[in-house]
């Protein structure tokens, strides 16, 4: 009798346990293109917070490296998943550059999802709709906006040039004191070159928005010849970090940098905090990083929740803006209530929001972008 009671109890317990709502364990695998700080951002800041919200989820972050190379890696991985013909892909979420996004859409590697995303309505920048001139609406949610600008050391440069034209005069008076990293050492140099072409071109808007036509490239030989002449007076540094290092050591007095990288270095004490920024007229390009969900992601529902989480105003303010010094992907007005005054002033101290809107340019559309880089190789590097 006693034995029977025990068995009954066990059965009841088993049935009760089976009834309880125990969520299934999920591993959310995300691949992140970008510098190490992007990987750290997800691994050490977002993943723990998100796992607290959803205890059944384990976030696995894989970094694929900076620049378009990182996006390239992601595309290759997704393509492998696609070629394998599996129903559920092992990658649930990717963070990817503009060029990578276009490649992914062309090959059917990512899917539209932003209709289901409430924070999508808070986005004010056009980058959520168009990337390098291609319509990406629906496929992407920006994670942040990053901008290039010119850093200068006020110890040596009292009155920094406010435009590309003034910069050209300045380098002639101060040869080798302006430095950038060419086009093969990272995007800050590439952005400087794009900014140069925008400045000299008769049709900068066409370069940024399309349409593509070779007739808009007719003035390029002259533009690049002048850039080659300009290069005689500048130092070519080793990569994005190389420019910051050279600024630190006082080898150069001015140079293009990524704003977020610059402020992060200052925050970590790796950079002379007296160095300031300026966004020269007629502007330099910036770019967003995008969240995208692979076509057959196994855990697309949790991927969506994570995107929603990162782009919600409070989290966005705390991590994206305050801790990592990126410009917000959603409208500034939604973020400001969650920001301390000093944080806001730090990010917008040198480059005002109005400057950003006026001089923050887009990257050129894909067809011009390729040709601009190749033109540099052909005409400037020789």
């Amino acid at each position, binding site marked *: 009798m006693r034995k029977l009671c025990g068995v009954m109890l066990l059965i009841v317990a088993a049935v009760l346990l089976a009834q309880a709502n125990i969520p299934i364990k999920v591993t959310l695998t995300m691949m992140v293109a970008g510098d190490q700080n992007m990987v750290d951002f997800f691994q050490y800041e977002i993943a723990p917070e998100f796992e607290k919200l959803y205890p059944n989820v384990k976030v696995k972050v894989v970094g694929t490296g900076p620049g378009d190379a990182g996006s390239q890696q992601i595309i290759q991985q997704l393509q492998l998943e696609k070629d394998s013909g599996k129903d559920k892909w092992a990658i649930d979420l990717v963070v990817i550059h503009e060029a990578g996004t276009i490649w992914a859409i062309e090959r059917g590697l990512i899917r539209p999802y932003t209709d289901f995303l409430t924070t999508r309505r808070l986005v004010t920048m056009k980058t959520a709709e168009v990337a390098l001139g291609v319509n990406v609406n629906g496929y992407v949610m920006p994670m942040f906006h990053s901008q290039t600008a010119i850093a200068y050391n006020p110890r040596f440069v009292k009155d920094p040039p406010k435009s590309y034209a003034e910069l050209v005069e300045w380098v002639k008076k101060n040869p080798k004191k302006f430095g950038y990293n060419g086009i*093969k050492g990272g995007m800050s140099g590439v952005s400087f070159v794009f900014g140069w072409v925008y400045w000299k071109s008769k049709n900068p808007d066409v370069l940024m928005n399309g349409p593509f036509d070779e007739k808009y490239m007719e003035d390029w030989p002259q533009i690049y010849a002048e850039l080659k002449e300009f290069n005689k007076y500048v130092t070519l540094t080793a990569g994005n970090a190389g420019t910051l290092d050279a600024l630190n*050591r006082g080898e150069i007095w001015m140079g293009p940098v990524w704003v977020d990288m610059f402020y992060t270095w200052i925050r970590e004490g790796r950079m002379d905090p007296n160095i300031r920024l300026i966004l020269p007229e007629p502007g330099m390009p910036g770019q967003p990083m995008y969240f995208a969900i692979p076509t057959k992601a196994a855990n697309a529902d949790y991927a969506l929740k994570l995107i929603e989480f990162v782009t919600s105003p409070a989290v966005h303010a705390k991590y994206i803006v305050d801790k990592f010094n990126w410009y917000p992907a959603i409208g500034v007005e939604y973020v400001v209530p969650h920001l301390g005054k000093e944080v806001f002033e730090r990010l917008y101290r040198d480059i005002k929001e109005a400057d950003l809107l006026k001089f923050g340019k887009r990257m050129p559309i894909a067809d011009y972008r*390729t040709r601009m880089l190749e033109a540099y*190789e*052909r005409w400037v590097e020789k």
Partner: protein
Amino acid sequence: MKRRRDLFVGFLLILPALIVLGALYVYPLILSVYTSFTVQGRYGLTNYVKAFDIYWRDIIYSVAISFATTVATLIVSVVVSGYLRFKSWKFLELMYKLPLFIPFLIVGHAMRVFLAPHGTLNNLLTRILRIEELPGLSRSWIGLVWAFVWIMTPYATLIVLGAFRSLDSAYIEAAQNVGASKWKIVIDILIPMCRPSIMVAFILTFVRTISSLTIPIMVGPASPNMITVNMMFRVNYFNDWGTANALGVVSYLIVMVFAIYYLRFMAAERGGIKA
């Protein structure tokens, strides 16, 4: 019958090695040559035209840098080996091997800080010589060769010193008896007698240099570039595997010139010994 079975067993034994070789070496090689001739699904020489049109200067530059590195490396390693053949110096023995254990990436970063215009080397020189604003060697071809020689010397020295040491001392003693200086012994006896090993060191150094990516990216000048940097650039910025592979094939061909020379040379050497 037994013979056939032996052959089969032998074949089975080498099969794993063959599979690894085929999958990881032959297949990618063929794929890479194939890709270099395709542009958007069509065959043609477009990739090669582009590769030579934009990068002909960089190809020459790569060969020149690799050659300069190899020659400098061999000079250093022959000097070190020559010294160690006659005298034992524990410190040098240890020091020349040290770079073997340091990854390329670390060397690249160290060199670019060390050789920068306001880097360690120039700060030191400024203190001693009292000259401000010395030009930096990083981001120049001299800095690049410097970093390469630093990395490549240990391997070359291992090979050359091994050969020097395995040479019968009788030859050296005979030369010393008739009054040859140590320097003369190195030049006239050690080097000629160890030529095959020095050739091996030469080719290995050359191949490793021309195929290196990390060091040129970190220390090399912004332009011209080594072939590897351009290959990376084509893939990362343009998603253009065709031209990247065309450049790859060009570098195989360059390396092959040396490989063929080496094989012929070795064959001649062996024939000579037999005769």
